[in-house]
């Protein structure tokens, strides 16, 4: 056996090298397939990585308190822009004083955690507890600043009062609403004032 190996040294060495190369290749192949499996298919530029139809989701803060919910027929997450877009979103916001605010529009673009939202197209904000409603072209919400605002022509409705202005801002806590720029509006008389009969002096 030893004499055979000594006589066929070249063949043994070649055999040994082939086996060694085989092992190395097998090892490399496994390593490659392993990494390929862990890599998600890359998303083409500007394409969503996931889309939700008829979406309805709720966000909770660290204490488990519900602070925002949204329904939308079409939600898409854009990984490269790190944004989420939603069509016809209806968004409810609960402020620190547990008051409810609703914002909506034709299109929404928001950060992934929903703390910053821009609504465009027939955007509305409603404050049920204060009985006011705002209609504008573009509306913004920022949870950190606790603020809803618009820099486009705004129409503000409260009870029977109608106002328009160039810009609008509502601080959620403490609640203040500010309309700025060319403010114009009408406050109708109440039913009592409208029907009060005091025109003795008006008679010719």
């Amino acid at each position: 056996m030893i004499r055979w190996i000594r006589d066929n040294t070249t063949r043994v060495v070649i055999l040994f090298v082939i086996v060694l190369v085989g092992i190395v290749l097998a090892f490399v192949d496994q390593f490659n397939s392993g990494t390929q499996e862990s890599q998600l298919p890359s998303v083409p530029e500007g394409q969503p990585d996931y889309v939700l139809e008829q979406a309805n989701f709720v966000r909770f803060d660290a204490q488990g308190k519900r602070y925002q919910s949204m329904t939308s027929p079409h939600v898409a997450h854009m990984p490269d822009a790190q944004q989420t877009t939603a069509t016809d979103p209806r968004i409810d916001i609960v402020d620190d004083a547990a008051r409810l605010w609703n914002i909506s529009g034709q299109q929404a673009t928001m950060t992934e955690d929903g703390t910053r939202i821009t609504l465009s197209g027939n955007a509305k904000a409603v404050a049920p507890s204060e009985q006011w409603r705002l209609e504008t072209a573009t509306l913004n919400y920022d949870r950190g600043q606790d603020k809803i605002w618009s820099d486009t022509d705004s129409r503000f409705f409260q009870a029977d009062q109608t106002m328009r202005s160039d810009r609008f801002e509502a601080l959620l806590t403490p609640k203040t609403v500010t309309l700025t720029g060319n403010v114009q509006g009408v406050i109708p008389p109440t039913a009592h004032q409208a029907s009060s009969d005091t025109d003795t002096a008006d008679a010719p």
Partner: protein
Amino acid sequence: LDSDARQPIRVSAGQLQLDDRNGSAIYSGTVHIEQGSMKLDADQVVLTRSAAGGLSTMRATGKGKRAYIEQKPSPQEGLVKGWGDTIVYSADSRKVELIGHAELHRGTDTFTGAYVQYFMNTRQVQAQGAGKNNTGNGRIEMTISPDAR
């Protein structure tokens, strides 16, 4: 006109701030308000509404120049004009208070003093000289013109 109170209030201003805690609306920046024949011009107007939602009071103040109000008592009468550092209009009593450098022109009659009060319904005028903390020299001046007849 007495029908003024039944007219809508039209407002224009540079800014409006609503404070829902006390139901007030603060208009500022060249504020102009009209209700029927009544017109009010000031730098700031705080408008408060009654529980029913209608106008309760308007408190107008001027910065640098006095606030101004005018109203036509009836189709036959001329404009009544009033100026004051502060003007307070109370909707229910239709009372106008001119406070600080107050001046009221009613037809050919003129009233000046620290405080002048005018009732739109009865056309009555009451004037006061300087009180403890009012501005003014403590004098009331009135010029009552005899009837033209």
